[in-house]
């Protein structure tokens, strides 16, 4: 597992989803992947597959019809995952706040780790937000890999740890 922790930090893959933004932040994300700002020096690659992604970049205030897709994409990303909300409207609804079909920010639906302000966010801010997200990703990885404490004595079958027997024992104790 140590192996994955090390390399996850060095090459986080991002998934980008537009939940109703005006395109401004999306083209700035593209621009920050391009040569001048070069997000790829952090090992970042834009991937279309949620199951291979670590960082979820969301833009837009969440429209009525995109919220199901947003939650579904979020649940498909494996743990540990970090959500970055790019743009003012993603954080609070921004200029779209209170319009008929919008939901005023993505944190009503999924937990957000980093908010990147700006309308539209400049590439410098997006890079800053992603670097922040990398720290959070590392902390989350460590949290997941902490050994969990077992109740009672360790049971083995042959040379191998038997979690089933240990669980049975805890279950019996509770009764």
């Amino acid at each position: 597992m140590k192996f994955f922790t090390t390399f996850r930090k060095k090459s986080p893959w991002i998934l980008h989803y537009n939940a109703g933004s005006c395109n401004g932040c999306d083209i700035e994300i593209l621009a920050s992947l391009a040569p001048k700002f070069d997000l790829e020096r952090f090992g970042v690659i834009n991937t279309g597959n949620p199951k291979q992604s670590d960082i979820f970049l969301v833009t837009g205030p969440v429209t009525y019809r995109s919220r199901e897709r947003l939650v579904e994409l979020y649940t498909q990303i494996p743990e540990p995952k970090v959500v970055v909300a790019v743009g003012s409207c993603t954080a609070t609804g921004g200029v779209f706040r209170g319009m008929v079909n919008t939901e005023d920010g993505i944190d009503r639906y999924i937990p957000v780790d980093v908010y990147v302000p700006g309308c539209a966010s400049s590439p410098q801010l997006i890079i800053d937000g992603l670097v922040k997200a990398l720290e959070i990703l590392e902390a989350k990885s460590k949290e997941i890999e902490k050994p969990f404490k077992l109740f009672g004595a360790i049971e083995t079958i042959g040379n191998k740890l038997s979690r089933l027997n240990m669980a049975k024992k805890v279950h019996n104790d509770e009764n």
Partner: protein
Amino acid sequence: MKKTIQIPLGSQHISLLEPIRFKFECENERIIGVDADVGFVHRGVELACTRSFEFKQVGYVVARVCGLCAITHSLSYTLAVEKLLGYVANDRIKYLRMLMVELDRIHSHMLCLAHTAENAGFEALFMQIMGDRELVMEVQEAISGNRVQFDYISIGGVNRDLTSDLCDLIRKNLTILSEKMEILTGLFDNNWSLSLKYKGVGVLSLEDAYTYNALGPLARASGLATDVRAETSDFPYEALGYTMILESTGDIHARNFVRLREIVNSITMCQNIVDNLPIGEIQEKVKGKPKGEDIIRIEAPRGELFYLVRGNGTNMLERVRIKTPTFSGIPAMMEVFKGSQYADAPAILASFDPCMSCTAK
């Protein structure tokens, strides 16, 4: 008995910047039917323009319909309201507005070319074009203060003036860009692997372009001579070296070439504007409340943008109708997909340069 399979594309896909869902009805590898769902990013801007915001604020709200052509949106709205208020801008304001619209067209077309190259599998070209595009973004940032959502145009003028330092920067960057465009044109014309992906793929015939009311670069690539810059008299385009660019084959290659040549034309126009900038105020006082109904048409990077504004003499407008280019282009786009290979679908889609934020508002 024929068997068909349905393959979906979207709403989230690596080749898509924005959510749109296609359902392709395929016979082996060939697409025979298309169904599109475009409403994922509908926010309700038209309603908010008449209920939540006063007419002086709406110009900045409609800019948020689309980030790529924000300037054309706010320009169209501002012109419509200025017509209702009976105000005619002086030449300097007109020239500065045109300058920003043409710069916007350059960067939007370059993004589309880059995206088409990426979807055809040419990642290096994507990087190269995006790198060159920064030359225009620098100019835009220097003029207006922001890279994409620059609220440059307000009712009665523009918000920032063009100093002589900025003129020098524009001349310098555009000269570099026009040299790079020559290299790019050669690359798009002569690269063997790109021509395999582009030439003869995704053809829209002239007959179909007329039937389905194609517009913008999509129509001009098929040889349909329509350009709002030649069909309206709000701006002196002809005096600044505008020429209509037409291709005849109607495939992806032709659409790329229309964009490439339009970039070159826009660079010439920008240089002419900077060289011949008239003297005058950049912001004038406009009094009154909009009353009556007026329409405005502006050539956005993707085609014709249409605004209808109706006011009743109060601060709140009665109706703001936004007709965006991709919205009326979708029937023609669906027609192009029929008969082509499924593997070409992402490249064909990128060559339309669709803007879903515009379409769904």
